[in-house]
């Protein structure tokens, strides 16, 4: 047992706690591994700390995860890239644990280290590690191996490259579906490092094997990577090798596979060029838009704008638009909602005429949809529509939809529409807003649900910011201040909340002349909750108004409240008085 001099004590404790019984302390130590390494020096880090960590592999997952992450940036602490290979040993062990997130992190760290290692070191240390993992007894090692080939491959000599390709091929046919899944999802990474000739032969063979796997989940991942893989190939090769697979997949028995195709199709289009898009991918996409599984239609509908952007307007109008019409009447509300969130983007692609003639009716019918999410999705993209068709045409249909949403019986829907009110105000302009929406904004202040009242107060603040103090004085303040006479104390409380938010926006003058008297008046309310909220609001207004007003109006009012019979009122009043004193002292 040694004793440690005082300045080193914290580090000594940190080191000791690598083996503490308390997991939190072990975690802390692992997170500070770089400190420990610096305290030990590079040489002892290599000779003692790293072997120590390598044996530390039966710890809790949280600790292992932190260790895997720390080791990824550990090269400086072991003496630079020429010693980087010592880090491989502990990470290799971590690549075999059962917890996926630990393995993933270990693989990520290995990739980080491998990409910095010198070529000879890669051949001497990294590639053997990949081969060991790929031949691992447990599937966990083999799963991890798949994510490392793209690091090992480029620097390997020719014979080794052949071997690595063949090992990867075996992993693609492993007995365990988990390994095949990992091989499928990492294939495009590996493919990116393989020479073009082998890419066309070996890698494409693996790809084809994976696409014929009898486990849905493997095929699914093969689809996921095919766009990335396609981009590595020449367009004509992509059209010849990948395209047929995708077209087949778009008619796969499994809806999950088709769902994946619907998500990936657009990216693949970028890889194949215009002609195959027209002949193969467009029909496939149209089929997916009309798929009998709603999930697939949701995915396809969500890509409708992106897809239109790569087509000519004629093709889009001829083939996609009819589907969009059908989707706008789809039996699944989620399909309609997905469509509503992107359909606005089609307008610039189709041009003004086609938009008004064909898209507008769709758009209006979605705006009248019985499902609130659909309407909300349209309203959230209002700026896009406005650009194309102008607000006049829109306002007739827009307003009923907004009014309906504003009164929806689900408060979350009301909340969502309130969030969009400043956007609407911005798009519609002052005049339109005053006529139609002003009343709604006031109505929300007296909603049954607190969250709505709170959001409504916030909304007023944002409107005041948008349209300026003069407008607010004219259109908001009189109506708001009227609430002071409301018989319901919760409504009166909302008023106070609104005042505390609007005050800073409107500035000192209006606050003093209009808002403050109402607040002071409210301090004589019979309900204690109102009174202590008055105290809170006054406190928040201290910074808004002049010092003189503070002394003349706010302080007396707070003093009076500080003698209130209610303990909470007194408490907040005293808090307010204290803030006044602080402001006075500091100024």
């Amino acid at each position, binding site marked *: 047992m040694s004793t440690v001099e005082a300045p080193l004590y914290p580090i000594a404790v940190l*080191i*000791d706690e*690598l083996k503490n019984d308390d997991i939190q302390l072990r975690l802390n130590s692992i997170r500070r591994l770089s400190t420990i390494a610096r*305290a*030990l020096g590079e040489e002892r880090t290599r000779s003692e700390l790293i072997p120590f960590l390598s044996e530390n592999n039966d710890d809790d997952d949280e600790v292992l995860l932190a260790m895997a992450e720390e080791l990824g940036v550990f090269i400086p602490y072991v003496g630079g890239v020429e010693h980087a290979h010592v880090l491989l040993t502990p990470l290799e062990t971590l690549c075999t644990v059962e917890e996926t997130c630990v393995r993933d992190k270990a693989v990520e760290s290995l990739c980080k280290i491998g990409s910095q290692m010198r070529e000879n070191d890669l051949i001497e240390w990294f590639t053997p590690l990949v081969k060991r993992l790929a031949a691992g007894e447990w599937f966990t090692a083999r799963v991890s191996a798949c994510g490392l080939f793209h690091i090992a491959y480029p620097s390997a000599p020719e014979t080794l490259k052949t071997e690595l390709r063949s090992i990867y091929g075996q992993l693609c046919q492993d007995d365990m579906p988990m390994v095949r899944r990992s091989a499928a999802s990492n294939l495009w990474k590996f493919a990116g490092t393989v020479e073009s000739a082998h890419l066309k032969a070996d890698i494409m063979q693996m790809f084809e094997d994976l696409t014929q796997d009898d486990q849905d989940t493997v095929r699914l991942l093969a689809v996921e990577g095919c766009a990335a893989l396609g981009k590595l190939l020449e367009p004509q090769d992509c059209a010849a090798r990948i395209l047929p697979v995708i077209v087949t997949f778009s008619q796969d028995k499994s809806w999950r596979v088709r769902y994946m195709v619907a998500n990936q199709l657009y990216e693949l289009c970028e890889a194949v060029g215009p002609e195959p898009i027209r002949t193969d991918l467009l029909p496939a996409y149209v089929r997916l838009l009309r798929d009998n599984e709603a*999930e697939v239609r949701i995915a396809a509908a969500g890509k409708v704008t992106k897809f239109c952007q790569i087509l000519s307007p004629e093709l889009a109008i001829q083939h996609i638009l009819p589907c969009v019409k059908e989707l706008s009447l789809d039996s699944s509300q989620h399909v309609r909602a997905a469509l509503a969130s992107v359909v606005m983007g089609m307008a610039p692609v189709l041009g003004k005429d086609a938009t008004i003639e064909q898209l507008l009716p769709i758009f209006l019918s979605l705006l009248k949809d019985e499902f609130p999410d659909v309407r909300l999705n349209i309203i959230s993209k209002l700026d896009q529509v406005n650009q194309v068709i102008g607000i006049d045409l829109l306002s007739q249909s827009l307003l009923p939809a907004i009014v309906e949403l504003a009164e929806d019986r689900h408060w979350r829907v009301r909340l969502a529409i309130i969030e969009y009110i400043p956007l609407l105000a911005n798009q519609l302009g002052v005049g339109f807003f005053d006529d139609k929406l002003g009343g709604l904004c006031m109505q929300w202040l007296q909603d049954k649900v607190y969250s709505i009242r709170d959001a409504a107060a916030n909304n007023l603040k944002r409107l005041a910011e948008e349209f300026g103090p003069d407008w607010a004085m004219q259109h908001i303040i009189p109506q708001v201040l009227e609430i002071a006479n409301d018989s319901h104390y919760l409504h009166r409380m909302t008023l106070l909340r609104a005042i505390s938010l609007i005050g800073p926006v409107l500035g000192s003058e209006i606050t003093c002349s209009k808002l403050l008297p109402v607040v002071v008046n409210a301090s004589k309310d019979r309900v204690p909750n109102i009174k202590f909220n008055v105290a809170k609001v006054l406190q928040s207004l201290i910074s808004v108004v002049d010092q003189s007003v503070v002394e003349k109006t706010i302080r007396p009012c707070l003093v009076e409240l500080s003698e209130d019979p209610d303990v909470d009122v007194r408490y907040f009043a005293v808090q307010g008085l204290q803030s006044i004193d602080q402001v006075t002292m500091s100024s």
Partner: protein
Amino acid sequence: MSNGGAKAAVASVGAPQPLDWKFSQVFGERTAGEEVQEVDIISAIEFDGTGDHLATGDRGGRVVLFERTDTRDYAGHWRDLEKMDYPMNRHPEFRYKTEFQSHEPEFDYLKSLEIEEKINKIRWCQSANGALFLLSTNDKTIKFWKVQEKKVKKVCDMNVDSSKAMGNGPIVDSSISTSSKQFIENGGCIRNDFSFPTGGFPSLHLPVVTSLETNLMARCRRIYAHAHDYHINSISNNSDGETFISADDLRINLWNLEISNQSFNIVDVKPANMEDLTEVITSAEFHPKHCNMLAYSSSKGSIRLIDMRQSALCDTHSKLFEEQDDPGTRSFFTEIIASISDIKFAKDGRHILSRDYMTLKLWDINMDSGPVATFQVHEHLRPKLCDLYENDSIFDKFECCLSGDGLRVATGSYSNLFRVFGCSEGSTEATTLEASKNPTRRQGQTSSRPCRSLGSLSGVVRRVKGANNLGVDANGNTSDFTTKLLHLAWHPTENSIACAASNSLYMYYA
């Protein structure tokens, strides 16, 4: 040895000889007159995929693991060695490995409902790195367990004088850890004021861990909760190694093993109006090979096969298996006894075995016109259905199992009896065994009634009738409805059965 080829080969030679069952082991045997504690009653039995481990769950929420001992001497290629050296005279033997408390009794305050700790089902998952993984469930909550040998840590040679700490007991110990927490939280005292010499501080060293012994540790890795409004009756792993399902009375949910906070509802049979409810889900299982297929059984005696590829919500089945009952024999009990208590896929994935109150039925998933074989288990109880209804026994849920080679099926009965039937072409094997050290005690009576095969003309549908009035045996004894053998499991590769008689686990081999 488990595929159809073997089966065909056997069939061409003729039906295999009936197995001669022998007692192998018993765990938790009761002494005469010993009273059984409710919590000790076994409620689930399951072999893992290799047959090297066996798990039981009980009403007290405990899971007990057993490991195979007869093959342990040959690490690595024991299976090959075994086949070469010991062709016949070995049978699976198990020993107690470990146990852990999987579930505790709980109270759902929102619904004012007690949640029992009883383990309803156990399913083994893929093992990795020498650790065992299993899922266990009670009525509401599924848990994912990892059982692993962990080194017993003995840390010595600390930097901070630990002898002093040890000498002064836990008080000093805790003061060290709190002060270190402070350092860590402050952090700066190391980072800012320190310059590290290039060689490091020689006085610092890493703690040394000496550990020679290991300890089996069970750790709950994930809890899949709050997804079932009704009682979970089954869980089943998918062949993709990634997902599993859990089924309650009205719904089946699909989970990813790694994600415990969300599941997908794939089957929902709950009617809009609960008064229209006529049928509940009683059991569900994934196909052993096709990750997209699963089957579930219902209280109306039907089995539905589902293809998850067709749709995200699998409310429509792709195949329906049910047997139309003869309208002439309908009675008040017809529907109750038609309820299927358990289904199991055969290893080949082509057959499904189902158990209802009276029979075992074997179905071919390519033939939905009717079962390929029906085995009478409780026919002798038909006259007593009224009594059985009165004492609720008619609602007992008997499990069933298939041998790894698919040639035989087994299920439990009353009086701690269980029955094994041969289901290969032309087999008339029907053995009744008692869960005791002398399993064939009763065989004299049953073998005196030769099994009769009622093969139909096509030769596809056959019915095997065994002893059909077991209830009133030669001594005039009636079945003991209080001792029932509900849970049993067949070893995946060998002819070995584990079955639960109350709190005792009996194992037999042939």
